């Protein structure tokens, strides 16, 4: 591991200036559960590590009429232990509560999960399904990016040198909506997704028809994927096995996985179809309350 300076700024602007100074030889540190593993594996030679956990703005978690705001450094356990989030955003909870075990969850956050940009990031598909937006600050000011556009490749994001994620903003879910995320792993926990599927559905007031849906996939492409066609196909369709099966099949088509030690192309595409069906059913159940 290359020796690095540890910096703990108290404001976003301080953080931005340190990051800008070192360019790609500095990185923000949230929970550190990806960063430290990679630094020790010599993935990078870092000169500075910028701890964001002393910046109040990045550690705040708030939920109100407009929606949910998750600071970039907030650990998963604070998210899934929050009563209102449990009630209103079950899909977020599904993701946040399976990242690692309890020790990991007390450090690891959704912000770090998003910035780490692993195709398998378990926190990301539900954020995409809920139409979440990433708030970014940098030397040239602030900007916002839809979560589905945030990752640009494995371990690569839209962030430029000097930029950092400040929070993730998730709109308030519409009435009669529900969401869910699951992944397939060979073991029961402490594992990495062979395929993951997050869905959001909005039904009509009777719960018989889809108003809209969003389906997002993990581990079946270079980044988490918004399966736009699959989700859109459900708008206006009756809630039945046929609609679900055809959306699942479209989700399968949206997957572009590779064969590796974790699974083959066929297995992963097959899993996307199976899991999409299962998650749509679960989200429907949640939407109907």
């Amino acid at each position: 591991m290359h020796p690095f300076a540890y910096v703990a700024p108290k404001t976003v602007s301080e953080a931005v200036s340190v990051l800008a100074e070192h360019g790609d030889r500095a990185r923000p540190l949230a929970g550190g559960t990806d960063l430290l593993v990679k630094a020790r594996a010599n993935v990078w030679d870092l000169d500075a590590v910028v701890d964001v956990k002393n910046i109040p703005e990045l550690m705040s978690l708030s939920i109100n009429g407009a929606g949910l705001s998750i600071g970039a450094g907030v650990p998963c356990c604070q998210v899934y232990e929050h009563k209102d989030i449990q009630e209103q955003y079950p899909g977020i909870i599904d993701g946040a509560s399976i990242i690692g075990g309890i020790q990991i969850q007390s450090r690891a956050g959704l912000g770090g999960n998003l910035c780490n940009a692993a195709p398998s990031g378990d926190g990301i598909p539900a954020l995409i399904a809920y139409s979440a937006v990433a708030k970014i600050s940098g030397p040239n000011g602030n900007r916002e990016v839809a979560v589905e556009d945030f990752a640009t490749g494995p371990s690569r994001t839209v962030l430029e040198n000097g930029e950092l994620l400040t929070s993730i903003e998730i709109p308030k879910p519409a009435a009669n909506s529900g969401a869910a995320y699951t992944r397939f792993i060979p073991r029961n926990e402490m594992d990495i997704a062979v395929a993951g599927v997050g869905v959001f559905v909005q039904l009509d007031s009777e719960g018989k028809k889809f108003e809209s849906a969003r389906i997002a996939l993990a581990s079946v492409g270079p980044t988490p994927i918004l399966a736009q066609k699959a989700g859109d196909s459900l708008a206006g369709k009756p809630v039945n096995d046929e609609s679900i099966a055809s959306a699942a099949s479209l989700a399968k088509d949206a997957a572009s996985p590779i064969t590796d030690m974790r699974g083959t192309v066929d297995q992963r595409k097959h899993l996307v179809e199976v899991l999409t069906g299962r998650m749509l059913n679960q989200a429907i159940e949640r939407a109907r309350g």
Partner: protein
Amino acid sequence: MVATFEPKTDYKVVGTRPIRHDGYDKVTGRAIYGGDMKLPGLIWGVMVRSPHAHATIKSIDTSAAEAMKGVFSVITGADMPKAPSKLVDLGEGNVNFKWASNKLMADTKVLYRGHPVAAVAAVDRYVAEEAARKVVVEYDVLPAITNVVDALKPDAPILLDDLVGDDLGEDVTNTNMAAHVRHEFGDVEGAMASATHTIEREYNMQMVHQGYIEPHNATALWDEEDRIKVWTSTQGSFPARTQIAGILQVDVSRVKVTPLEIGGGFGGKIPVYFEPIAALLSKKSQRPVKMVMERTAVFETTGPTPGARMIVKLGADSNGKLTAATADIWFEAGANPGAFIGPAAQCVYAPYEIPNTRIDGWDVLVNKPKVAPYRAPGSPQVAFAMESAVDELCEQAGWDSLQFRIDNASKEGTRRGDGVLFSKIGMQEVLEATKQTDHWNSPIGDAPEGKVRGRGIANGYWFNIGLKSSANLSVNSDGTVQLTEGSTDIGGSRTSMAMHVAEVLGLDAHDVRPVVGDTESVGFTDVTGGSRTTYATGYACWQAANNLVDVLKQRVAILWDVKAEDVDFKDGVFISNAESAKTISFKELAGKLEDLGGPANSTGAVDLESAGDGFGTHIADVEIDLATGKTDVIRYTAIQDVGTAIHPSYVEGQLQGGSVQGIGWALNEEYFMHEDGRMANSSFLDYRMPTSLDLPPIDTVLVEVPNPLHPYGVRGVGETPICPPIPAIANAINDATGKRLYSTPMNAGSIVESLK
């Protein structure tokens, strides 16, 4: 003459469950493991490893590393003493110093990915790592061989130019085949031809790793007197000493090995990896050198157990009796010879009585790490093939597979596939006990929608070994006893040793304080392996305790002014035969020893030729998600003949641990290799061992058929339980889905594939 013992039942200590003596230190984190080692002036050693699985070394330039500030020494293959080609038995497996030396540090060729080509010692780990990156090595990359079929092709690249293979007694050169052995009895072809039912199948298994949590480590000091002191986590301080001395070409008495606590081994910590290298670095640096392995290197360069290709053919008559069997077994040795085909031959048919048998085994070199013993090395592989074939034969013929196993069970007098005749064994008792279990007699229950359930059984066998052990005792004035024994403790054996002594002396288990000695404080003791420790070292402890009683009788004789022959000892009390009223307890006597001749010590030493065979049968229930192929083991029972369970909790622990490792091997574990010989999944993230969340409670049934070869009837128990799980799960999967899998791992992907 081998001593035999009558079974007893009136034990006071044997069969109880005292808290382990090392328990407090372990749960409070105070126990000293290899990684905790600190010495004044300690520096760090780091290996420079080959990125290629197969290549010739064109040049090594260490000058930049040597010039770095903080670097004390750099060594390469040129610094390795030339060890002769000499085979030495290590109890479980053996070692040829020449190959062992070559495995630790490459000479002119690298033979597996991660093969060390140089080593650096520096002031701390980070400087050493930085310096290791500055060693420049030029390679000519060669094609890598990753399986036995490719290795034996006529035009295959040859790993070791100077290998002389043994093909049924004939020398062969220019080969990747280190050995081909055969055992044949009866008229195999005739019996197979006249069999009513036959089956022939091919089975393939990937390499798997022992997966101990503690990585390999060593600290060594080559001192000014030319003595080599080594502190390490090992499964045998004496076998480690043998290897270190052999590889470094020094007398064994120049090497002192101090064993530290060990965080798992399962056979994988019998071979040494860092010890001789740390010693050479120390010699050059004149400082103690510590090395701790990275997890990736643990996977890429230590362990594993052989991957295998096996073809098994069985023949049975119309009455459901096995009449003939053949097995062709190709095992991956890794980069040097030694793939455990001997044990595979011993184990393959052991649970069955079969009159006509043939076994052919091949020890084959591939560009993967040299295999190391892993819990019953070679036996789980052949159990997968044999027990799957037995089940499929029963299925074809319409026979009940448990009854078939009972009807064909081996017993006293049965000839094992390699020719040995069994003495008293417990296979039939185990199978009868299986039939009586609650598990076997309970319905499996309905699976939830989309899932199916199935049940499978399978047998497993390990022959167990005896060999050499030593123990010393001395009496403390407070009536307790100090025990120093030579077996490093990986499974709670210290407590079982103390219990052997306590039983003889009529003491509480905690009145005996057991310590694992270093190679200069206790007599020679073989490995903690081969399921020998409680059996053989326990025997030595029993012997030492009896010798101590003899010593103490003489002290009582002084006290009472009688002849030692007139002193009896029973339940912790010395009794006078001459004057029946006279008694003195062990504790009371201990307090008086100062005036009765002073220190009372004794010793025990054994060399046991045979050990008593271990048989087990397991029952596995699985539930499979038909859409994803995910398999959960929902109920599991391990039944085994354990002789006498000295400490039943540790015996149960062995059965459970072996079962769990077998379940992991069955379902998910594998060396997933790239074509160029790199392991793709060299981390615990992608090398999937089961966690506690992936397992049901493992029920155990201890069948106690006392072993006549041990004073308390102990039988080795540690290895047998890893043998049945793989076929039990294969049989359960077949029961659930109607599809049989012939290769491991039987993971979700292969199950979905089989259902297409």
